């Protein structure tokens, strides 16, 4: 196991695309978070988003958007294995399909871990500097754990799409449009089953905090997952974890069915 993850990082540490994407995410997260807090006018102030304990819900909600970028990075890394034929070479050299899945899952979990850790640092700094709240910083820190699961969820979707499609450009398009594709399918599914679709479940892990706190701007309609879905966060979490395992299983199934070209 340790060797498998070491091999994964040997591949990506010298890879520029990997650094560009993570660099972007790690730079933009605090920058955008800071920017949002500075918005507002005399009547509405956004600066309270920095305060404990709200900061955890707020920063993970923001982070969830960047999860799409990280998922894109996973798509690229996995499609590379097929387009460079290095997956095939790894099998020839002495790995098997289980090693492939385990390697990629370990990579995904490590990415999620780094991102969650980074959000913790950013959130903690914003919360500490802004002051104005007496609650302990650990209150509501569960959002970080939920974010961690969500990150794994998005990246597992990336894994399955990349393994199925194998072409980088097509996989990125399909991955980024998966939410849209899902919502079209949902139209045909009766309530409440439509609320259990994977992308929606994963997205709902980090509920939109702005809907709780701030008056909804007229003209912008955002579904409030908490109000509408009425699936408690705990249930969402369990369903998401189940989906993640299903995704890994399907990915393995796809691999075993196909010749390795």
């Amino acid at each position: 196991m340790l060797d498998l993850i070491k091999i994964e990082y040997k591949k990506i540490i010298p890879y520029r695309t990997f650094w560009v994407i993570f660099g972007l995410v790690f730079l933009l997260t605090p920058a955008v978070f800071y920017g949002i807090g500075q918005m507002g006018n005399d009547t509405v102030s956004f600066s309270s988003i920095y305060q404990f304990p709200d900061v955890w819900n707020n920063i993970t909600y923001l982070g969830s958007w960047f999860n799409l970028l990280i998922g894109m990075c996973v798509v690229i890394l996995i499609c590379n294995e097929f387009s460079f034929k290095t997956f095939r070479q790894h099998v020839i050299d002495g790995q098997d399909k289980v090693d492939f899945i385990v390697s990629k899952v370990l990579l995904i979990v490590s990415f999620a871990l780094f991102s969650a850790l980074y959000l913790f640092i950013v959130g903690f700094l914003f919360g500490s500097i802004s002051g104005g709240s007496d609650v302990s910083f650990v209150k509501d820190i569960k959002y970080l754990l939920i974010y961690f699961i969500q990150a794994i969820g998005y990246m597992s979707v990336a894994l399955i799409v990349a393994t199925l499609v194998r072409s980088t450009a097509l996989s990125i398009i399909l991955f980024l449009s998966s939410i849209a594709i899902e919502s079209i399918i949902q139209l045909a599914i009766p309530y409440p089953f439509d609320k259990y679709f994977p992308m929606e479940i994963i997205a709902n892990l980090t509920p939109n905090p702005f809907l709780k706190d701030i008056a909804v701007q007229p003209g912008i309609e955002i579904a409030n997952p908490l109000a509408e879905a009425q699936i408690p966060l705990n249930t969402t979490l369990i369903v998401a974890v189940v989906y993640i395992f299903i995704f890994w299983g399907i990915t393995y199934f796809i691999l075993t069915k196909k010749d390795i070209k």
Partner: protein
Amino acid sequence: MTAVLNINGISKSYGKVKALNNLTLQINQGEVFGILGPNGSGKTTTLGIILDVLNADAGSFTWNGEAPSKYSRKKIGSLLETPNFYPYLTARQNLSIVCKIKEVNESEVDRVLSVVDLISRANSKFKTFSLGMKQRLAIASALLGNPDTLVLDEPTNGLDPQGIAEIRAIILDLANEGKTIIMASHILDEVEKTCTHVAVLKLGNLLTHGPIQTILNTQEQVCVSSDDLEILKLTLSQIDGVSNINQTGGKIYLMLAEGKDSAYLNKALFDKGIVASEIGIQKSDLEANFLELIK
């Protein structure tokens, strides 16, 4: 002799194309086994199946008597079709990944890079390599860990004449060390110079297999002529070590036993009172033999 590889009735189809039809082969330790055949005859398909990247429709195979697994593949050095590496990584970084997969000491990287003459470019990115350099790197990769068995699909593909000679020398060295080498090729000259055994495939069918001398008739022939061919023929048949006498045109062709050369033949004829007007060594025409085989 122990079988390194046992292939048992393997078949593989791509839709309507029967790429491999009930192939059964045994490859023994120490053999340099050439798989010959025209384009699309199923050579790569065979190697892909025994390396577990292609799923056979039927049949089975064993490595050293055991069911194939990733552990058996770790001990085989393989080059299948094209060199596959990360373009943005250097030669050294790429091989270091292979070392980790094969559970081989990293010190092997510099050794194999030296063997294929790439050590001076060890820190260049793979994508900057020429075709021949990529092929050399793939061969280097197959040599990592000094495996007892090598599987090589057209190992000299894309190499310059010097490169071909070098790789051939490497293969011969490995063969002399007693390693088992399974090699697909359509370069007859290459097969003749390196292989001890061959199998010939055509459209997925095994046409024939066995020691290379018997299959491709690689033994050298001696051609002799003199004034009276009938007497010559009769005399030749009485000389020790002479076989396969036949007459074509105005010349007699024959084979000499191991250790006997044309000087021996000349002396033997002279002792019997015959002066040969011509004695020459005739290389057998591999290409003609091969084309005859796959007709």
